[in-house]
């Protein structure tokens, strides 16, 4: 591993950090703006009070009380929405790791160079993982700058941790897409299955949280959203084991991608 492919990936795709980071940051600023006014968020809370608790849970809100605080509002609304947008970024990044170059035929040129398939895939993965990190960090900085600039009374460390906690989720979706693209070979199929993975995971988390019992627990347990919820930082319930589970899934997914990519025909 020489790092050349990582540098090239960053050189050619760094603008994604700007586009996605600023885009998500703008969303953060909007949420900050609303959080600036306790009257507005309590007004929202009053509206939501009329909803059944199960329905609230399905929308990712575990309690009305949480929404009435600025940090609870920012994390419940912004982080939940950012998680969805970041999933879109992650699917696109996962395709960029190998599928796009393979489908366009560029991979033939790349793999005729003195670099092993494994090293190439690893360096591409690291390159896009760094870009994803850049997106999350930029988004967090803009959101925090908004909190400071608008004098929102919210603990910065809690907001920062809950936003950074989105990163493992983005990495997981990127890795799953990479795995699907290397295994299925067809980019369109990989996009479809990855999107299904994100949507089903979101629904499982929402529906699982709204119900109780073994099936609900199972649905929550298999949804990656349940392991990266920002609320855990607000209510002090963050469990590092959740992050370990997500990183373990990422590692397994990447090893499987690597094995598939190394052992199969390219470009057929």
């Amino acid at each position, binding site marked *: 591993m020489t790092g050349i492919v990582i540098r090239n990936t960053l050189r050619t795709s760094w603008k994604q950090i700007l586009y996605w980071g600023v885009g998500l940051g703008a969303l953060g600023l909007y949420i900050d703006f609303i959080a600036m006014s306790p009257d507005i968020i309590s007004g929202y809370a009053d509206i939501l009070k009329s909803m059944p608790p199960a329905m609230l849970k399905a929308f990712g809100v575990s309690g009305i009380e949480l929404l009435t605080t600025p940090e609870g509002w920012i994390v419940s609304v912004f982080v939940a929405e950012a998680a969805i947008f970041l999933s879109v970024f992650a699917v696109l990044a996962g395709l960029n790791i190998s599928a796009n170059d393979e489908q366009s*035929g560029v991979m033939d040129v790349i793999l005729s160079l003195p670099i092993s398939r494994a090293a190439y895939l690893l360096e591409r993965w690291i390159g896009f993982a760094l870009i994803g990190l850049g997106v999350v960090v930029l988004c967090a900085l803009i959101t925090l700058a908004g909190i400071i600039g608008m004098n929102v009374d919210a603990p910065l460390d809690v907001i920062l941790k809950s936003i950074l906690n989105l990163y493992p989720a983005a990495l997981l979706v990127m890795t799953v897409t990479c795995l699907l693209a290397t295994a299925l070979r067809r980019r369109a199929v990989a996009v479809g299955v990855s999107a299904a993975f994100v949507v089903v995971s979101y629904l499982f988390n929402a529906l699982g949280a709204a119900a109780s019992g073994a099936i609900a627990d199972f649905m929550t347990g298999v949804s990656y959203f349940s392991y990266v919820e920002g609320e855990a930082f607000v209510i002090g319930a963050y469990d590092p084991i959740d992050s370990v589970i997500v990183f373990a899934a990422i590692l397994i997914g990447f090893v499987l991608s690597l094995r598939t990519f190394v052992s199969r025909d390219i470009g057929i």
Partner: protein
Amino acid sequence: MASDSVIEIRGLTKTYGAGRKATLALSQLDLTVKRGEIFGYLGPNGAGKTTTIRLLLDLIRPSAGSAKIFGLDIRADSVEIHRRIGFLPGELNLWEGRTGEQIINYVASVRGDSRGIVKHADELAERLDLDTSKRVRDLSSGNKRKLGLVISMMHSPELLILDEPTGGLDPLVQQTFHEMMDEYRAKGKTVFLSSHVLSEVQAICDRVGILRDGEVKAVESVDKITTVDFHWVDVVFRDSLPAGLPQQLERISTITDVSTNGARVRMRMVGDFDPLLRAISNGYVEMLHIEEPSLEEIFLAFYSGDEEPAK
């Protein structure tokens, strides 16, 4: 492996798909390419040329058999092999949004010693009259091909593997390319070149392998294959054909395909010239033109279904 062999292929077989949908693309290929030669790999579309090349580059995996390049296994030692070879794919696809210069710099950095490689790339680009400052999407197909040639040759590889290298190049650039291949040969380097442009193979290759339906039908020196034992003979008489000449020629067992056009008669002839000379001695011969069969004709002979070229 003999030290003068650069490519050695033994029993290489590739089947795409499985079960009823399985397609045999290459069957039990045995082939040796020697150091310092330009080897032409001929065959029509679908014969297995690109499959062979993709197997050699470890882009696809053989169903059976093995191959070595520089004595190294194409699978286990692919990185080391790729360090020493240059490759131009038949369907060249590059990053559309990037300039030739950016691609050259990237490929050079992956190959290491980028400064020296880029300098040589600039020389090659100048020689091929290629503007590397343009984005790939703005290049014509011929200029893309030139860029592919620069990328494949810029590190002065020991072995060049070129899949249909001159497709889309104008005749002047083709001439430059032929000169480059001559220089490669003079430096003792090896070229494995697939083509269906037989005149090109005839012009620059030392040996040729003819592939049909995934099987190598013949491997011969270009000299030998072009001196196969038949000729096309044109005889032009000053006034008119001697009376009864066509019928007389058709009676000669070594002459076939007799056709006439005014005072000209054309025929395909095998063996000695004496029967022909005797037959035309009654007329005043203004011109006698003897033409060796082209590779196209030999090629067609192979593809007629015969195991041996038609004599």
